């Protein structure tokens, strides 16, 4: 079987990607990379605004989707209604299949319009909008995985805690969540990775402004993430130029971060099994 070749190539594909990225002309404009100005015309390739944008947008998305998802999952998992669970699961599966560009379309057609109207601004293409759209995108993932994690906590723990006279919220806080902690964390890491790597939806609503917002935490300004930058400018930059290689460098950083997240999630899931279950 030429399968050995195939396996090697699977690994090689990833490595090759990274090597391919060493097209970057790190030698030429290295110093400007760590600045905050991005202007190919003047040979300035400060990637900080994009890095910042990616992280901020990811944080907004997680800040919205994680609490919302976990609380909803708690409700669904603890409810006695099998029907609700069934409906939610089916709906979530459907939503998981919706391509990211469609989320982008919704962002453009609805969310950015609402944000602009609601906050009385000229445009809705803001960092905040991108964060909101991303939150909506990762919500199904967080919901499904967290609900699974909570449902997998053996009923006997809940029963014993209830018999001691604990209220539902105490049972959840002190028994259920600690047990499900690892799986919920893995789900969060997965969602994080998706949020960082998402291109289309972010690209359409973030406003493409290559500058750090001022003040730094102004979510109501336009911005740029690594992915949106790549999406917009790869097509416009000449292969082999410094411009191109700077873009590739950003891509490389992104891949390394996502690979690290994947590895962390995998490690988390495959750690030694938790306390021995006599139950």
């Amino acid at each position, binding site marked *: 079987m*030429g399968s050995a070749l195939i396996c090697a190539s699977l690994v090689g594909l990833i490595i090759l990607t990274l090597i391919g990225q060493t097209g970057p002309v790190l030698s030429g404009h290295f110093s400007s990379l760590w600045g905050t100005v991005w202007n190919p015309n003047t040979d300035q390739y400060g990637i900080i605004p994009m890095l910042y944008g990616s992280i901020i947008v990811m944080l907004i998305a997680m800040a919205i989707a994680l609490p919302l998802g976990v609380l909803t999952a708690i409700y669904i998992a603890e409810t006695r209604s099998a029907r609700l669970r069934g409906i939610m699961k089916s709906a979530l599966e459907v939503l998981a*299949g919706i391509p990211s*560009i*469609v989320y982008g*379309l919704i962002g453009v057609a609805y969310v950015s319009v609402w944000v602009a109207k609601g906050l009385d601004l000229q445009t809705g293409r803001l960092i905040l909008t991108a964060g909101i759209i991303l939150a909506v995108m990762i919500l199904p993932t967080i919901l499904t995985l967290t609900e699974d994690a909570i449902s997998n906590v053996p009923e006997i723990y809940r029963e014993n805690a209830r018999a001691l006279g604990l209220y*539902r919220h105490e049972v959840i806080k002190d028994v259920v969540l600690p047990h499900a902690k690892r799986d919920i964390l893995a789900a969060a890491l997965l969602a994080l990775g998706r949020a960082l*790597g998402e291109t289309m939806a972010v690209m359409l609503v973030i406003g493409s402004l290559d500058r750090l917002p001022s003040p730094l935490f102004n979510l109501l300004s336009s911005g740029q993430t690594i992915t949106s930058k790549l999406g917009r400018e*790869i097509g416009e930059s000449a292969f082999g130029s410094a411009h191109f290689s700077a873009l590739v460098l950003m*891509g490389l950083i992104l891949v390394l971060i996502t690979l690290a997240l*994947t590895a962390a999630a995998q490690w988390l899931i495959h750690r030694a099994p938790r306390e021995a279950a006599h139950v």
Partner: protein
Amino acid sequence: MFSRAAKEHVFAAATRIALFISIGILAFLLGAIILRGLSALSLDFLFTPSRSFGSSGGIAYQILGSLLTAITAGLIATPVALGASVYRSEYMTSQRARRIFDLMLYGLNGVPSIIFGLFGLILFVNIIGTGLSWFVGGIILAVMMLPTATLATVNAMRGIEKNYRENALALGLTREQTALRIIIPQSLHGLVTGVLIGLARAIGETAPIMFIATAFSGATVPTSLHEPVATLPTHILALAQQAADPAALKNAWGASFTLIALVALFSLAAFFARARLSPYSRR
């Protein structure tokens, strides 16, 4: 401080509110797509080519392009996934090697879609010099699908009773023969399901093929391997960027609905494949 009973009420209310918001969001998403999409659809729309950069006309070539790249991707990915999983199941004996293999696949799975596009651009379009090519698009999509397809097949193989293998070897079959006659047929359901699920994802991707396989205007039916095609996701992207124009927007919704319908088609196919191809022992 708040009494315990009060805290209980607050918490219960919080979860209920969260449920309400989540349901609201999900319902809105589904509703908007269905309603806006349906209103833009017509037979005309589906089967005529686009004009004026998409704000009028239909999406005939886009549908064609999407299907073409997707099917190509499927055809490339299937043998690779099969071969890799057979190798992992039957020839890789060390647990450590298997773990590394799996890790590589998970890693590949987590790579952002635009990086695949970048990779394709660097390697194929420029270094190898194919230029814009629908075929390269298929290759890249196949690479994206590989983890999904391979892991599904591996899982199916894991489920095969140890007995089967041992009995086959005891009867004198070589490893290749065991693989061919027993393992592969028993894990086909995993392969087919995995490929179909991967296709459902791949057909909706914009970023990987955006600058290596697609051209926005002028692309019709390709006559060689080195031509670009039009696809649904990139079409939607272009239309979304003209959001100020209501006609463009309308067509964007129509294209979105069609795209989602295709995704659903593949997903349903995967569902049925799993049901019908599962070996009796697993049903």
